[in-house]
């Protein structure tokens, strides 16, 4: 059957027959890098048009409908526009840090791609601390925002950066605790092991109440961590013009924009992996007949289907709820989400020890 892992194996054998092992590895690294960059570009195009269509339909509008069939090439046209625009650096800015910040945002997003399993046996780096690696690396992304806000030498940028710093640092806690709930059930941090543990049902079904509560908390916390509405105080248009990227234009702005969308994809992919079984098809306990039918749908379809469903949920949030004030935002985290997720972890631990989960 056609699958990503077959293609990867074929490329590996093809290169192995022409080159020695070191050069094979280097060539594979280059191919993986190019593939990730290609995926980034594709994700940027797809997610931008998806966001614009979803927002339009939710707000009873038509959305982009002029460029290409049903406006589907609109984001391509936007990309072209951004590519040919002048990339300005303001005179009073700290030029070195100002130009460095978008690349940091991009590099962090690229590093986060490494442990994500896109399909069965198709993963860049299955390291044994998978989920911890993701939480660690994603904590660097706040640096790029702080750097951009400071280096712009603009009070709006600085305010936006500080808000976003406070927000990301505090919501990382409940996102981490929500992830920990699933780690308690699986007893392993490795992404492939987490997916394997869901072969007889996804954790959101197997884990009773704690898994569902953790899932809701996870979705809320990652929406805040990716700086999207209703938690988009960092770039609140009506108050701070555009927050930390007020002074950016052209390709540098596009990199921030792309990094935001790629981050949304990554957190949704992680959510899909932890709670909805990653590439694992919908399996129910011992119904072998049913499980067998589900296996006919390719694993990459399952992964992208679940991920895009979560992305849709996050977009749905964005266009439904009004923006929170900074005090409401911090109240929500420290008075509601954090105590609830701690209680939830206790409950999950009890269930895991007593073996009540399926």
């Amino acid at each position: 059957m056609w699958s990503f892992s077959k293609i990867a194996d074929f490329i590996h054998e093809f290169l192995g027959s022409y080159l020695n092992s070191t050069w094979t590895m280097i060539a594979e690294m280059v191919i993986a890098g190019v593939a990730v960059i290609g995926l980034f570009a594709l994700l940027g195009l797809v997610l931008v048009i998806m966001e614009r269509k979803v927002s339009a339909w939710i707000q009873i509008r038509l959305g982009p409908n002029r460029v290409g069939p049903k406006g589907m090439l609109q984001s391509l046209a936007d990309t072209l526009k951004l590519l040919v625009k002048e990339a300005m650096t303001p005179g009073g800015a700290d030029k070195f840090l100002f130009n460095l910040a978008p690349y940091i945002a991009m590099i962090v997003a690229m590093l986060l791609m490494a442990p994500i399993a896109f399909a069965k046996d198709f993963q860049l780096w299955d390291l044994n601390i998978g989920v911890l690696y993701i939480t660690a690396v994603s904590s660097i992304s706040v640096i790029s925002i702080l750097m951009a806000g400071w280096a712009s030498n603009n009070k709006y940028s600085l305010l936006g950066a500080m808000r976003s710093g406070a927000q990301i640092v505090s919501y990382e806690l409940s996102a981490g605790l929500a992830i920990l709930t699933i780690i308690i059930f699986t007893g392993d941090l490795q992404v492939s092991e987490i997916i394997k543990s869901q072969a007889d049902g996804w954790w959101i079904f197997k884990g009773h109440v704690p898994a569902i509560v953790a899932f809701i908390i996870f979705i809320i916390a990652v929406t805040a961590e990716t700086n999207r509405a209703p938690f988009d105080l960092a770039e609140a248009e009506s108050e701070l013009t555009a927050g930390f990227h007020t002074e950016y234009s052209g390709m540098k702005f596009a990199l921030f924009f792309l990094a935001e969308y790629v981050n949304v994809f990554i957190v949704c992919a992680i959510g899909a992996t932890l709670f909805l079984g990653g590439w694992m098809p919908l399996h129910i306990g011992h119904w072998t007949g049913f499980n067998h039918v589900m296996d006919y749908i390719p694993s990459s379809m399952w992964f992208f289907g679940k991920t895009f469903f979560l992305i849709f949920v996050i977009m749905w949030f964005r266009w439904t709820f009004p923006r929170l004030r900074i005090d409401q935002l911090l109240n929500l985290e420290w008075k509601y989400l954090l105590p609830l997720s701690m209680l939830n972890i206790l409950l999950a631990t009890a269930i895991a020890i007593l073996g009540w989960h399926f």
Partner: protein
Amino acid sequence: MMNGSDILFYGLAALTLGCGVLAVTTRQLFRAAIFLLFSLIGVAGIYLWMQYEFIAAVQVVVYVGGIVVLIIFSIFLTHQAGEKLAPQKIKRQIAAFLAAFCGFALVMLQVYQHTFTESSETAVAPTVKAIGTQMLDTKNGGYALPFEVISILLLAAMIGCIVIAIQKTPKGISQEQ
């Protein structure tokens, strides 16, 4: 002839040391914090090079995600963008250089005088499971007691923070707004 592993090590070491030097020589405070960050990432890279993934991840979480962000926040609240620090007096520069050199010499002396012997015990695999069991073990040289002692220290620090931050309402003003 260096192999790939050596090239990686020297690259990471150069990143760590170079950014460390830049962090102390730059006269812009925010840039110093960023260079410190890259230096710490270099250290995390060296842990990763040694295949201690867990330590590398913790290094990034604690130093990059926690301490550097805290430093940057305090810079944000106290300094203005584009401001340069005044150059230090030559006396202080010499004193700082001497202090750094003495520390460096002490460490290098210890390293050269110590003879490294290979341990006969089998190494503990640096997986999260092994580290977790070792950390909370009460037997076999486990670290349960130091772990708990440190957590009491942290608890005390947190209570101290709350006591400092607690809001004292002046007399005559009711608690409700």
